[in-house]
């Protein structure tokens, strides 16, 4: 993933390096953000343009999923070191969430 933390045990080592790395990380965050805005605009535009719903719905759902992935993995650093347990539990939660929603769109009638 991005801005992998240096593996040094001494946190005071190489202050300059860390500053640079943080700044680099921040640039990636901004790039991510730009993409997110871009996706959002596409979603809104697709709806505003009035395409068929069989086209629009999968597309905007896909974009939403990607965007949320960005939030989790970039803004919230879920893929980075030290996030093994968080990501396991988030994924489990997402699993339960998915099952719940799946059930509610299939076996609640109408």
């Amino acid at each position, binding site marked *: 993933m991005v801005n992998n*933390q*240096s593996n040094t045990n001494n*946190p*005071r080592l190489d*202050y300059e390096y*860390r*500053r640079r790395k*943080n700044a680099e*990380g*921040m640039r990636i*965050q*901004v790039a991510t*953000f730009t993409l*997110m*805005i871009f996706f*959002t605009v596409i*979603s*809104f535009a697709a*709806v*505003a343009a009035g395409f068929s*719903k069989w086209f*629009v*719905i999968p597309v*905007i*759902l896909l*974009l*939403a999923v990607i*965007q*949320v992935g960005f*939030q*989790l993995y970039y*803004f*919230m650093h879920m893929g980075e070191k*030290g*996030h093994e*347990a*968080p990501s396991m*539990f*988030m994924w*489990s*939660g*997402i699993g*339960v*969430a*998915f099952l*719940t*929603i799946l*059930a*509610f*769109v299939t076996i*609640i009638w109408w």
Partner: protein
Amino acid sequence: MNADEKYTPQTWPEGPERATLEGKNKFLGFWFFLGGETVLFASLFATYIALKDKVPSPDHALAKDLFELPLVFVMTMLLLTSSLTSVYAMYHLKNYDFKKMQLWLVITVLLGLGFLGCEIYEFVHYYHAFDHTFTSSAFGSAFYTLTGFHGAHVIFGLAWFIALIVRNAGRGLNLYNAPKFYVASLYWHFIDVVWVFIFTVVYLMGMVG
């Protein structure tokens, strides 16, 4: 390690939010809480999907009658941007730049307030223009509960940020409050995550039918 110890940018540790055991615990516990919140919101989403457009009689407004893209777009931009500004705040937390961190947090709060203002306007509008209320139909209940729970999270997040900003204004960063700032910003991102699905599933999918 004394949590109150004073630091300089040079001595400030690499992962300040997890430099103490308390910080580690808080960090992990909060992530798990978010895992649970994921399921909570999924439940509300599932309910909303099941009850969308379920109204007692045909004269009630449906999703496609209610929603308007421009307002939702503005709200989305406000919230997404506030997510970025809180990333900036965390960037300065890592760099031990307390002033800038506070500044970005204040900007985050302002954006969040803007979002909240829009949401309140939106709800009032639905009430006046469509008689679409919490009690008017199952659709209304599900809609306001989902968006309202999200709105309540926004309010709580704002209150949390404000409390942190004010409480720590006089004493700067240390290893005792760094995890608190970090965790609050995680919360804020999570609110954004939920909103991404709200604008997609509720508003956009509501518009296309």
